[in-house]
């Protein structure tokens, strides 16, 4: 661990941690780019100015590969690998855009959107909103199905709250609490549709081992974890 | 600014017991050193780090018998009277 922290840049999120290592040259959308060995294809694409849309990846945390948004096509490889968990190799040829990829990404985002409060879409400025725009989605084809809109907001902590209705279960908060802070207060509890972020033994944040460092708030892409100070009149669901 | 402007009466500027404790503590630190280095070390420490009024109070107390002070402290403090001994080597932070 060296460049993983020292190579971070403000205003730029290349998706996975920077590495130190021998230079590796590959091609992304026809552009040649050289990155250290151990870097992900996602990072190489970002360096080549061909950034891939993402949700569960952020360069302060190791890759996880859960959201399935950052899919790419790699010459000689079958299927549509996630660029965050795929490491670069010399001479690799990557394509970040194609009709098939666009369709796959739209499909994934529509699913996320179907379980996201509709009223919170306009004027939103979280990373989730930006990714929706990048992928070109502003609606979904699904009717009103099962959702998480009625789960209670946890505002036990004086400084930030957690609204499960906006949580996309990307695990960035869990990983931030583990990798960055080292407290391991958060987990994903349950499976499948029941999966949810839990603090401690599924307690309010304030009663768990959470030390209120804010790493989870910093990592959350959808403002499910968010500072209370950004809601001057108090937090209300629409 | 010279020492004459500051009063040299024992126990006046700072409580005498405290002064004696502090001086003995310094003596305790230098105890493992060979006697000559220990004396020089203590002397230099007082010269560099103690307000002159505190030094003068200590010397006045020694003049009055030095009750409560360890012998090695008395010997070392008396070196302060020898102004010629103002050298730059001593056993604390070095001079650059």
């Amino acid at each position, binding site marked *: *661990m*060296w460049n993983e*922290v*020292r190579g*971070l840049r*403000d205003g730029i999120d290349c998706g996975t941690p920077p590495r130190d290592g021998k230079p590796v040259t590959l091609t992304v959308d026809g552009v040649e780019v050289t990155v250290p060995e151990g870097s992900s294809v996602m990072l190489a694409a970002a360096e080549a100015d061909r950034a891939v849309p993402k949700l569960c990846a952020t360069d*302060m945390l190791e890759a996880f590969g859960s959201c399935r948004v950052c899919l790419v096509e790699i010459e000689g490889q079958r299927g549509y690998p996630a660029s965050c968990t795929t490491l670069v190799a010399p001479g690799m040829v990557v394509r970040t855009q194609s009709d098939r990829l666009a369709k796959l990404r739209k499909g994934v985002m529509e699913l996320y959107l179907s379980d996201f409060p509709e*009223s*919170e879409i306009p004027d939103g*400025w979280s990373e989730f909103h930006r990714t929706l725009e990048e992928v070109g989605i502003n609606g979904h084809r699904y009717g009103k199905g099962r959702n998480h809109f009625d789960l209670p907001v946890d505002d036990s902590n*004086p*400084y*930030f709250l957690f609204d499960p209705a906006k949580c996309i279960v990307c695990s960035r908060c869990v990983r931030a609490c583990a990798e*960055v*802070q*080292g*407290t*391991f207060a958060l987990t994903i509890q349950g499976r499948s549709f029941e999966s949810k972020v839990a603090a401690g033994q599924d307690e309010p944040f304030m009663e768990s081992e959470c*030390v*209120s*460092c*804010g*790493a989870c708030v*910093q990592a959350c892409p959808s*403002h499910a974890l968010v*500072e209370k100070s*950004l*809601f001057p*009149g108090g937090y209300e*669901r629409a | *600014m010279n*020492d004459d402007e500051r009063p040299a009466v024992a*126990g*006046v*500027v*700072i*409580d005498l017991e*405290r002064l004696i*404790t*502090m001086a003995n*503590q*310094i003596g*305790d*630190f230098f105890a*493992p*050193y060979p006697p000559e280095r220990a004396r020089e070390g203590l002397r230099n420490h007082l*010269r*560099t*780090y*103690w*307000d*002159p*009024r*505190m030094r003068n109070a200590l010397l006045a107390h020694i003049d009055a018998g030095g009750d409560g002070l360890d012998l090695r402290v008395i010997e070392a403090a008396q070196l302060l009277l020898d102004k010629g001994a103002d050298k730059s080597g001593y*056993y*604390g*932070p*070095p*001079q*650059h």
Partner: protein
Amino acid sequence: MPNPRKPERETITICAYCGVGCGFKAETIGNEIVRMTPWKEGKANHGHSCVKGRFAYDYWCHPDRIKTPMIRDSIDDPWQEVSWDEAFAHAASELKRIQGKYGRSSVGGVSSSRCTNEEIFLTQKFVRAVLGNNNIDNCARICHSPTQFGLSATVGAGAASQHFDSILQADVIMVVGANPTEGHPVFGSMMKRRIRQGAKLIVIDPRRTETVDSPHCRADVHLALRPGTNVAILNSIANVIVRENRHDPEFIKSRCEWQEFEHWAELVGSEEYSPDKIGPIAGVDPEDIRRAARIYSTGPRSTIYYGLGVTEHSQGSTGVMCLGNLGLACGMYGREGVGVNPLRGQGNVQGGSCLGSWPHVFSGYRFVTDDATRESFEAEWGVELDSEPGLRLPNMFDAALTGHFKGMYIMGEDPVQSDPNQNHIIKALRNMECVIIHDLFLNETSKFGHVFLPGSSSLEKDGTFTSAERRLGRVRQVVEPLAGYQDWEVTVKLMNAMGYDCEYAHAGEVLDELARVTPAYSGASFELIDRIGSAQWPVNTAAPHGTEVLHTEQFPRANGLGTFMLTGFVPTRERVSDQYPLLLTTGRILTQYNVGTQTRRTANSEWHPEDVLEMSLGDMQTRGLGVGDSVTITSRFGSTRLKVVESARVNPGVVYTTFHHAESKANAVTSDLSDWATNCPEYKVTAVEVTKVTSPDPRHAESSVTRPAHREREAEEIAVTEKV
């Protein structure tokens, strides 16, 4: 409504709290700070934060903020609001009057390690050039002054040898008398990352702190020593290293004074410091001492991080020297992943140390007794300067009691709450005629003040901080100062009111002046920092972008070599006795910061609304105490009341509390003993007794001076004859 409001502007600055010096973005809408987010390019924190810097910033606009200067003739009168000019004129005339009546050395000041480098520099300039003496000190006196002394003695520089990132290359991490998980949380997280990668951890601390045992992160060796036995244990570790030939002779021969090493090896290698002898004295298994010694000396890269558990002792400086000696003996200097590093507490206490806020040195650690240095400052400032060392902070209070110290400029400090032997300090302050308080809020000390100058928080001014890793970074103004002036402007106006002409168009000009006179900062400027973000000193022509790791080729001592100091163990004079059979040690908690001036005025108090006393179960049972009982804790010096809780973290015979709340008056109980070299108070060792409170009287602290003198002497006699 449902979507959060979006900040309009972001200003990059440094956290106002601890010495890690995390980079933050202050995000604003208009003149309102809506949130603070960690700066990814902050070289200390790399995008991480802790609860204090991230969320507890609201104190800056708390209703308690004083916005108008105030004066009063007597501390029994109510405060009178006045204009700034009136306040300056009054303060100046009082200081002059006092100096005329009691002598030039009857006044002095203490600078604030919560203030910028520029402000600290101006405060010491005020005392030296305007008041004409060297009675200037800073709060490092009560925390890391032994670091200054001990590390300067062994390696020539009283500062961390490494940068924080260096820990990512350590194989062995030894933490002595510090609890990074709570005291320096962002650094603690880095440390844990490295340990999860496989680095070994040795902890020397009386308590089983979070640092010793937390998820996926457990110490390989924990020496839970008795408070007061640091030097014994460290010498015993050295004993094993020397006897088992685990030191590094090549390094010592090429980089250190070999003869001094031999003297030292003879001292620590003696039977007196063998683990079998020292283990029982310190309450530690001798085998654990051997394991710690072997792990540390094997490395290959071993680093030491230490805190106030080393310095706040009567052998504080000696303890620091022990650490320096160990580092040198094992060759752990001059590359990544090694070194000896103090975890300095305050955001700018390193700056305070560097910039001469001491009674015996000018900025750059050069002695006031040295003629050449003094003459260079006289030329720069245009006045004659005092050639004798001045009074240290505790000695200022001592001198006040004897009527020789009558005026004081206290900037951003609350000695009544933070300094030991509180009753002594209160009496001293009452004896003074002009106490000038320059602070954000009224506090325990301002009760004894005659002039109150409203201060500005770090969000309201421009300047620089020097963090614990020697990193010089920019504090940038985010909002307008509530009282109208940045702190450095107030100090300049006070100097002007005293008749000394100086002016600066902006804080950057102060940095330029201090860079001219401080060799390690000679290359520093606002322009440089704006360009490269931050720089660790020394930043000069040889290292224009700063220096990450020190001592790579030479040690900054006269002959370029490191040396070994003879560190004999001298047990503290503070002994347990029948009357006071327990040892009290103190510490900090994550959510509150020091005396709580800032954090108690934020929601952080939800976590830690009061200080409690931690005690082991056995000790509670023998005293008939239950969890949550109100108890009186008494020492030779005073007493106070706290709530007691059971804790498995402390060994029998040891009790522990924090000092964040004024009501707890923890420092009414702590002793008046201090480090032999620097007078750093021995906060960490006080003999006490704890008894249940049966009467429902309101909380108060008693002074021991109300006890008859013969009872006092009785207690002393018993204490002296008891062994540790």
